[in-house]
């Protein structure tokens, strides 16, 4: 019962679409509309950590948190690339993750999108030149959108996903 009353006292903490930072609101509205158009407002996201420091993962987790609640746009993180429409790739691609990343891409049914999250994904960041790093994400699989930042904020990731949806490769 303690749990229930706490739930009631806390109330819904998701940022509403009407209030707050106008830019975010605008973005969020746009994501909603695009998601509706392209994937019937149901987007399965498969997260691939190809060697990240996990900073980006923490931000991605933020996307699923009650505050951002990406589920309200119909985004959900799935357990298998076979169920996914979009791959969210983080980190420089290490040598050990090169083949798995490619296999994940191959395992995802068409139409599919790839969003590379974080500076490392584009430039390999501080790991560039390491013997353990194979290269940037786009040297392994085709990338639709890069999201810059170290780490990028959840809103940036949302914007990246939106841009990918708009790119219309799907």
């Amino acid at each position, binding site marked *: 019962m303690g*749990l*229930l009353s706490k*739930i009631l006292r*806390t*109330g*819904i*903490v*998701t940022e*509403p679409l009407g209030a707050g930072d106008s830019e975010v609101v605008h973005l969020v509205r746009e994501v909603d509309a695009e998601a509706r158009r392209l*994937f*019937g*407002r*149901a987007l*399965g996201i498969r997260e691939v950590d190809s060697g990240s420091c996990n900073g980006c993962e923490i931000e991605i987790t933020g996307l699923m948190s*009650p505050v951002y*609640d990406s*589920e*309200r*746009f*119909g985004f*959900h*993180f*799935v*357990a*298998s690339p*076979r*169920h996914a*429409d979009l791959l969210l790739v983080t980190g420089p691609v290490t040598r050990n993750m090169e083949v798995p990343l490619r296999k994940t891409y191959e*395992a*995802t*049914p*068409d*139409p599919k999108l790839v969003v590379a999250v974080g500076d490392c994904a584009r430039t390999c960041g501080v790991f560039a030149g390491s013997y353990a790093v194979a290269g940037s994400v786009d040297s392994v699989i085709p990338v639709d959108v890069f999201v810059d930042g170290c780490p990028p904020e959840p809103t940036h990731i949302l914007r990246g996903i939106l841009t990918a949806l708009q790119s219309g490769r799907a």
Partner: protein
Amino acid sequence: MSPWLLGPVQAALALLLAPGLVGAIRWMKARLQNRSGAPPWQPYLELRKLFAKEVVVSNNASWLFRAAPFIVFGSTVAVTLLVPLLAVPLPFDGAGDLLVVVYLLLLGTFFLALAGLDPGSPFGGMGASREMTVAALAEPTMALAIFALAWSAGSTNLGHIAARVLATPTEALAPGHVLAFAAIFVVTLAETGRLPVDNPATHLELTMIHEAMVLEYSGRYLALIEWAAALKLLVFFTLLGNLFAPWGIAAALTPGALLWAVLTLVLKLLALGGVVALVETHIAKLRLFRVPELLSASFILALLAVTASFLLR
């Protein structure tokens, strides 16, 4: 309306409502997690998307992998022809009883487990093994609960049980009846892959049961399996709602009565969905080897249900 038409109408209604039920539970859970959550109609959109997507099939998979979704889906739809969804004089009541419902659902589980083994993935094998273990252990509870119900109703046919409770409303609060309800509720959680037996929202392969079997599926096959899973949940909820508290179900096939039946059915489904959402918010998943404890507890409930009906005969 012709009574023979009721069967297809029931199946169509169940197919229509099932994704909404899953969506409603997800929505209620989101609200209990203080999120705004996806709207309840989200599963429809997901199904539409999946039907439009490409299918990727493993190179190790055989024809069985492609046939299984249709058998899983078909067996579950066949069940909706038998359960008392809307009206009590069921047209196909003579075609099958509660045991047929249980075995038709087992048929779907059987083929889904085989399909999990087919691509040779370790996850699929793990899911198949666990799913069959849980299904087997849930079977005695189900049988005894049916036994308790059938004994007081004088029949194992679903229409008879519902009609009997309608005719003698005090029956609905008889101890045997209530205990059987509790037992079947636990079985519902186990058979439909809900918490605390299986977590429908997990991403971690090693904790999966149902999800692990369908990791290989994509596109329309996945859509069929997901739809069938939603339908199975709806079937169990309908059994709980319309066998134990059949009020609202249509006694005659008039438009008004049927409309009222649809309305009460939706309300019952939402109420049971709310209970499941609450349960899932409150408790954590059980370790796999503690699931037998839960199922033996449900078995005890069913056994007491039978004992209570012994005592009151």
